């Protein structure tokens, strides 16, 4: 039988915390940029302007058709060259930057679908009322439709955030040391991969399970 030896974990906790900070940084950036950019995409997709709607739909569908692993690799290819073109030589480690860009642009596609559904769930009379009161279409969207839409979407946006938090572990493919990458490296270094992987799984489970419980409570309160 396998003999467990958990002794390499306590000493590695500072490293693991540093990794968790990167995981959270990528998650938070992708949530914020993803929601802002996703809102713009959703509004563009629903707009009367055919070209704008077509471009937004193309963006969303392309990102949703391609595996996240490929997207991360794509940006790891493009971002360094773009930075080089802008800032010249001598750029440090670009793995974090390219991961941040990849996740933000990728998540925007998923958020925009949630937000589009949220906007469409607002009764049409609200738009008509806004326009009748003399709001411009832009003001109607910003001050009447979006606030109501976001209220309905909070649980879905949070659920997507949990999925995103789990997906950030995929930065492993470009060798970025997020929480999971650090756990793997420590386990590999100490020959204790079994313990470190189980530990990482348990930590992810506890965080995601707790947050999903909170989301469920919120959902129950919103639907009252």
């Amino acid at each position, binding site marked *: *039988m*396998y003999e467990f030896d958990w002794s390499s974990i306590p000493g590695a906790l500072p490293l693991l915390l540093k990794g968790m900070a990167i995981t959270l940084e990528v998650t938070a950036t992708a949530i914020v940029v993803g929601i802002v950019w996703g809102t713009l995409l959703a509004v563009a997709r629903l707009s009367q302007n055919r070209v704008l709607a077509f471009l937004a739909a193309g963006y969303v569908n*392309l990102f949703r*058709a*391609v*595996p*996240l*692993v*490929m997207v991360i*690799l*794509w940006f790891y*290819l493009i971002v360094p*060259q773009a930075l080089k*073109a802008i800032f010249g030589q001598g750029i440090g480690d670009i793995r974090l930057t390219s991961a941040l860009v990849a996740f933000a642009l990728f998540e925007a596609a998923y958020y925009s679908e949630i937000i589009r559904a949220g906007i469409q769930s607002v009764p049409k009379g609200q738009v008509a009322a806004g326009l009748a009161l003399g709001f411009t279409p832009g003001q109607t969207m910003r001050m009447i439709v979006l606030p109501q839409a976001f209220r309905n979407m909070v649980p879905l946006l949070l659920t997507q955030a*949990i999925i995103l938090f*789990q*997906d950030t*572990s*995929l930065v*492993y*493919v470009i060798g970025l040391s997020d929480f*999971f990458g650090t756990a*793997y490296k420590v386990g590999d270094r100490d020959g204790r*991969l*079994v313990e470190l*992987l*189980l530990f*990482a*799984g348990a930590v*992810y*489970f506890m965080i*995601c*399970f707790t947050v*999903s419980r909170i989301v469920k409570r919120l959902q129950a309160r919103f639907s009252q």
Partner: protein
Amino acid sequence: MAYNWNWQVFLQPSATGEGTYLSWLLEGLKWTLTLSLSAWVIALVVGSIVGVLRTVPNRWLSGLATGYVEIFRNIPLLVQLFIWYFVLPELLPVNMGNAFKQMHPLTQQFFAAMLCLGLFTAARVAEQVRAGIQSLPRGQKNAGLALGFTLAQVYRHVLLPMAYRIIVPPLTSEFLNIFKNSAVATTIGLIELSRQAQQLVDFTAQPYEAFIAVTLLYVAINVTVMFLMRALEQRVRIPGFIGGK
């Protein structure tokens, strides 16, 4: 930024001497499809069982099924894959673990990835099956029981035939997800599409051609699956229900 485009790179004989670089892509496509489709079979079978168990009037069984769903949904796919591939062989009885480790590396990678992807997706399928069953009016189940069906017969002849037809659209998106998620297998070295993209970059130094080709193949899979599932959806939709006529 002058980049030398060279699409003919795919026709060049590969560095290992076996076929062209195009044949590497096709090899990758083959493994992506094999992995995804076999994992989908596991996902449908296990997902249906777990989904049904979540709705049965037995606390113990439904609790067990809920536990399954929560565990598989709240741990990242990559972590699950590494646990299947690196941890499980160590925890098995020694001779079984060794037998696994002595298999061909490709076989090991494939089995770990297939089980992982199948059981991961099963948790999602289970949620859809449960939602499908619970969306049916309670009268259907009661009517079945009143007519003298056993509970198993009610599920087999009344609830499931309806539920499956209702959940075709959400199952389509899970089916699409399984192809995309199969790219995670690149991390344990399985030579599926995204692995081949990275290999082509290393061997040909034509990264954009390789990535564009692989991206287009994923889009092609996506479009094909969507097309087929739409056709299925139209065939099985139920008159009077959402999306039905």
